[in-house]
């Protein structure tokens, strides 16, 4: 599997400047092309730092001390520059305000900004922007100012500005935190579609129900270390994680309580609605 991995982190330990303890410790992570991996964990677990590391912002932008190796598509991060790196890896920040350039008056121009920077011809640029807007459902925002949008709309723009670059690896840090519930589900669907088309996805997220529904694999991060990894159903129902302050779905917590009262009879706890319906209907 290591040979096939498009993202390959070996023994990565990283410390931000002026801090005493490492934000990431001995991270070993291999992700294969087209895989959709979700990273979960309490605030401060290192989810964002892991995203920054895969996206090359650590150490190129944030500095600090890093050991181990980070490879994407066979190239090592420490031997590359950030402007080369971004051609392979796209990162959507947790807060869309941090991502919007401030240099453009309309959403359409904002989305074309990255393409302009890498010299994509004008006609192709237009086509790619229009397609990306259609995919994320923001075509009607094309002429609005990025700053006149609501938080959730800005998040869609931020995500679209990465998708339009067609990176091999898509790194997303809570990309739906400000989105309405059905919008969140739609965006998870879009991300899933990108993975089906071969884009590799790494998603830091709290919304357990949708991770279970859409992701291939879950990495549970705590205090900068990987505690558990595996298929969503197993990781997200683990007692171990609950004790460590990880979020779980209401289906899981309710079935766990029901089990104590003898009302849930299956061994496995549910994460999704369908699993809960199936278990409780018996």
């Amino acid at each position: 599997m290591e040979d096939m991995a498009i993202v390959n982190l070996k023994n990565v330990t990283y410390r931000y400047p002026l801090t005493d303890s490492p934000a990431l410790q001995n991270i070993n992570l291999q992700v294969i092309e087209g895989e959709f991996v979700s990273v979960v964990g309490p605030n401060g677990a290192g989810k964002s730092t892991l995203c920054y590391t895969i996206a090359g912002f650590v150490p190129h932008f944030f500095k600090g001390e890093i050991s181990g190796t980070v490879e994407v598509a066979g190239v090592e991060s420490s031997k590359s520059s950030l402007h080369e790196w971004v051609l392979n890896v796209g990162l959507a920040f947790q807060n869309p305000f941090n991502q919007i350039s401030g240099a453009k008056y309309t959403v359409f121009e904002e989305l074309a900004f990255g393409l302009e920077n890498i010299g994509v011809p004008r006609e192709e640029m237009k086509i790619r922007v229009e397609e990306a807007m259609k995919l994320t459902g923001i075509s009607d925002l094309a002429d609005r100012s990025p700053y006149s949008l609501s938080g959730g709309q800005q998040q869609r723009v931020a995500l679209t500005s990465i998708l339009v670059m067609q990176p091999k690896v898509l790194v997303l840090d809570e990309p739906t935190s400000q989105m309405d519930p059905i919008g969140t589900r739609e965006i998870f669907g879009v991300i899933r579609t990108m993975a089906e088309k071969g884009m590799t996805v790494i998603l830091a997220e709290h919304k357990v129900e949708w991770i279970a529904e859409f992701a291939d694999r879950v990495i549970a991060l705590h205090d900068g270390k990987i505690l558990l990894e595996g298929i969503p159903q197993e990781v997200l129902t683990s007692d171990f994680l609950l004790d460590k302050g990880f979020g779980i779905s209401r289906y899981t917590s309710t079935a766990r309580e029901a089990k104590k009262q003898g009302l849930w009879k299956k061994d496995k706890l549910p994460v999704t609605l369908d699993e809960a319906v199936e278990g409780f209907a018996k």
Partner: protein
Amino acid sequence: MNIETSNLQFSYPTGVQALRRISLIIESGEQVAIVGQNGAGKTTLVKHLNGLLQPTSGYVRIGDWDTKEQSVAKLARRVGYVFQNPDEQLFSKNVGTEVAFGPRNLGYAGKQVQSLVYDALAMTELSDKTETNPYDLSATWRKMVALASVIAMDTDIVIFDEPTTGQDAANVTRIANVIKVLRERGKTVITITHDIDFCAENFERVIAMTQGKILLDGKANEVLGQEEVLATTYVDPPQLTRLGKRLGLPATIKNQDEFLRAYASTNRGKN
């Protein structure tokens, strides 16, 4: 202190009509959640309650004050507002000073400022962080500082704009506890949220907005059960509400206790 909006309309200078004839009464001590799709006008509506925005037509009253006739500074005595992004409101060099800024600015006496600050820090579990610079704290704790700095102003009305966004399970529980204490003290709490499970578990009244209008307004279990109507404003019912419905439980379920009680009384539960 009641809140009343009457035929409230608002258009942004760009011409986008954000609120269309909103007439609403929120009574003293109510706990209200506002839900709805991105761009529905939720934030625009609550920014009218403390005068940050003024109606294009119609009026907003906070108790006996018309917001058009009061300054934002004066309205701050009655309405506290916690922004969605804490970084938009924090500026002091340490947590204690930050939280004291509001009550001091409202003119409370020194001793009272102290006790308000002490109380707000305890409620938000920040008592051990008074000397810390807010920007040395994690985003999670900065959120709690933003909450504390508004709670310390001891206003009758407190507004939270998406308080649980990006927060982990432990902090969502902390925020729910803050809301519970405010309720016990008789405060009016208005919260914008996309976290519909959090909404179901902590609020008695739910207002669903769409395209600048009120779509639904009522008791939480009346509003949250209306799956088809909520879908038009991009809101899913809470997880346990959906589960109860799929299992054919008779009542609209809002939380775990309600679910387990309803399920236990069905035939399947009794087997």
